[in-house]
């Protein structure tokens, strides 16, 4: 009964308060839990553990006069024979985003990292606080009570909050008065039944809809969102309050979207692992994570990779409606339509078959196995789709290869992204299954992410209600958290319910009453 009442109270103002209370509890309960990351599901698989042992040195390109490629060794690992022994000690110069801390490029050693982590362990553990049940739950309970005490969202205080200047000013008062409906005695039972139906609707309707969407008929279980989280795991750089805020906000955002449409959400823990570190590289992390997700969700068909610094703006737009019900019309396969990399297409080789030389593959939506976007410099893997298929298995298999990596690791600054660009260009079998989406359909950039301009092909358009914003490259000289915060608030504001719009408009009108502004 308690639940039901709270449910009624919360949902009686459609959407807005319920969202805010849930948001509130989600965000504030996590405020005190910097150890959230440790409870994130660990995704290490042991797939390649057997290759872990041998050290390997990365060859400068000059040293590549090998008699043959190295075979895997018993006991694991792969080594490049014929290399100068010292070549593995020095890291290559030049930036290698993500893997090295920017202030000391190329000089991070294992010993230094260990010293840093020792330093961390030097602090007394803060997990001993809040150990009792009540003290753990007290805050939650209090949050819940206080959330109905102050239903007005204007009173809601968010720890992650600052600056709301773009929002329309003015606050709504509690406009819901108490109405007395005169009830005739004979109609009482009817009214009561209607009331029960209404209560039932408020309590269960969302659950019923979500259950339907998750079911095979609803089709939601065909999609898995893979969210990259805990990037580097705070190993290379200390994770500060902003990083934690990005983390929990981004996860909360995808959770809400996935829950609404019945999609699965897989949090990929991209903790810095030795086997993905520069000189141990045994695979591309993205590929491994997607493979694991494919094993974990055997019924899912499409896997949507999202970087951590992304924001789903439109909760009301389902993927089916947005893309997959009519994939053909959204996708372009002829890369010459937008070709920043200047890739030769279609392939001119006379010895290829028609499919290999086709401009648009076979033209069937069924053969599309990868959907991605191109930004202003080339492929962008911040947000892309892979479909479960033989083709995808093969792509994930050949994506990383020791012989290719050895030759190209200095040039492939963006790792798997560059590798994919390379494979797309050099191996004809890949092309017919890759479909390109207009960038803004799943991967809008904020202003400044692609040059200084504000190209409407690339950058987020508020009026067009773009689905996803990707703060690509925000860690290089921009402020990830303020961007995410901005788009979070913008998304909330764009997604107001009719009631909220009405109230905002009323507030605006009230503010515009002559003389009112002076008193404020």
């Amino acid at each position: 009964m308690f639940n039901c009442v709270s449910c009624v109270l919360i949902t009686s103002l459609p959407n807005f308060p319920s969202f805010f209370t849930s948001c509130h509890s989600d965000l504030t309960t996590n405020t005190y839990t910097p150890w959230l990351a440790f409870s994130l599901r660990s995704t290490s698989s042991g797939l390649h553990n057997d290759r872990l042992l041998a050290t390997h040195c990365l060859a400068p390109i000059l040293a590549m006069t090998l008699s043959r490629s190295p075979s895997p060794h018993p006991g694991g690992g792969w080594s490049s024979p014929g290399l100068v022994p010292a070549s593995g000690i020095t890291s290559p110069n030049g930036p290698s985003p993500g893997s090295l801390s920017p202030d000391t490029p190329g000089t991070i050693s294992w010993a230094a990292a260990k010293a840093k982590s020792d330093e961390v362990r030097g602090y007394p553990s803060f997990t001993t606080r809040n150990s009792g049940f009540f003290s753990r739950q007290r805050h939650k309970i209090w949050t819940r009570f206080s959330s109905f005490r102050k239903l007005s969202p204007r009173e809601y205080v968010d720890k992650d909050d600052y600056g709301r200047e773009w929002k329309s000013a003015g606050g709504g008062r509690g406009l819901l008065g108490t109405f007395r409906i005169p009830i005739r005695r004979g109609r009482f039972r009817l009214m009561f039944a209607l009331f029960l139906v209404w209560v039932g609707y408020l309590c269960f309707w969302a659950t019923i809809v979500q259950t339907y969407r998750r079911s095979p008929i609803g089709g939601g279980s065909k999609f898995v969102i893979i969210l990259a989280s805990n990037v580097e795991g705070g190993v290379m750089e200390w994770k500060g309050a902003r990083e934690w805020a990005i983390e929990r906000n981004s996860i909360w955002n995808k959770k809400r979207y996935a829950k609404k449409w019945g999609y699965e959400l897989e949090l990929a823990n991209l903790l810095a692992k030795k086997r993905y570190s520069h000189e141990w590289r045994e695979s591309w992390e993205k590929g491994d994570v997607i493979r694991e997700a494919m094993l974990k969700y055997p019924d899912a068909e499409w896997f949507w990779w999202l970087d951590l610094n992304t924001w789903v703006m439109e909760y009301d737009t389902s993927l089916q409606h947005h893309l997959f019900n009519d994939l053909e019309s959204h996708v372009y396969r002829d890369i010459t339509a937008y070709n920043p990399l200047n890739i030769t297409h279609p392939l001119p080789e006379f010895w290829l078959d028609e499919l290999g030389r086709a401009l648009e593959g076979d033209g069937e939506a069924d053969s599309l196995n990868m959907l991605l976007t191109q930004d202003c410099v080339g492929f962008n893997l911040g947000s892309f789709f892979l479909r479960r298929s033989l083709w995808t298995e093969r792509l994930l298999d050949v994506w990383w290869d020791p012989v290719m990596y050895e030759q190209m690791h200095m040039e492939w600054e963006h790792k798997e992204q560059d590798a994919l660009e390379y494979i797309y260009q050099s191996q004809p079998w890949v092309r017919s299954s890759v479909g390109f989406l207009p960038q803004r359909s799943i991967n809008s950039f904020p202003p400044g992410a692609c040059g200084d301009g504000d190209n409407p092909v690339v950058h987020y358009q508020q009026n067009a209600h773009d689905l996803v914003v990707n703060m690509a490259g925000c860690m290089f000289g921009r402020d990830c958290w303020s961007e995410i915060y901005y788009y979070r608030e913008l998304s909330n504001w764009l997604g107001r319910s009719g009631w909220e719009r009405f109230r905002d408009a009323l507030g605006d009108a009230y503010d515009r009453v002559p003389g009112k502004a002076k008193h404020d």
Partner: protein
Amino acid sequence: MQFALPPRRSPHPLPLSRSSRMSSYRRKQLKSVAVLAFAILSLLYLLHYLSSSASTSVAAPAGTSGVVLVTLLDWQRFSESYLKKIVANREDYAKRHGYTNFFASVSDYDDAVGDAPMSWAVAPAIRHAMATHPRSAYFFHLATNALIMNPTKSLKSHILEKGRLEDLMMKDVPIVPPDSIIKTFAHQTEKDVDLIITQDSENLNPGSFILKNGEFARFFLDVWFDPLYRNYNFAKAETHGLDHIMQWHPTVLARTALVPQRILSSYSNSSPGASSDGTYKDGDLVIQFHGCDDEEGNRDCAHELDPYYKLWEKKTQTD
């Protein structure tokens, strides 16, 4: 339970009022229409099911049949008389069993191969053969240093027949002998196979293999022919390239069957490096003068070929 509103109609409509009015003829008609509709619907469903399963299968496209013999002729390294013998050998075999021949000149693929050794031309050549004969099921690549010695043996009865490959497949065997830790899959079955190949005592032998038409073939050939492999300076060019992808890419290995060397590529006595029981014995399908065209030039393919060619000629005449 009490309803808020009284029901409008009696819950029991007159049960026989309608059907009594329906004539038996009409009832029969309706029945046949229903049966017909059901049959059509189930047929449509069946067709849909079949077509959807066909699109996901990895087998050769429906309607494919036949075998194409792919031979790459290097007019610069081999004398014309030698290559004519090889061509005659292939043409005879193809004619006997209704196979198609695809002869390609190595120089056609100069641009594709680039700076790498010309032996890499095998990959684009088979791709070319597949483009030329898209409806053929199997592509049998046989290098110019090999001769078909048992022309009466068809590939079907020798390898491709149902159940035959199952007996021949070497499972759980190191791919690159003798001690590679990557072995062929132990649980692989005949229907998982798209590539049939042999190994000698050191490497896989790309001088003689059978590739099934289909998506795997395209994938396999494109990966094998990747420019970064060609530029890697593998000592044995495409052979080591093949060893490499087979060991590092399980999706390739999963569709590959190793068969005993004498099934597809028995080595002649003068060719070193045969696997145990890999040397030519009378009755084998193929003899390969492996390494006779090496850069060192110690051996002469034409000279080695001669006695076996005469033997083959004698066989074709008696048959």
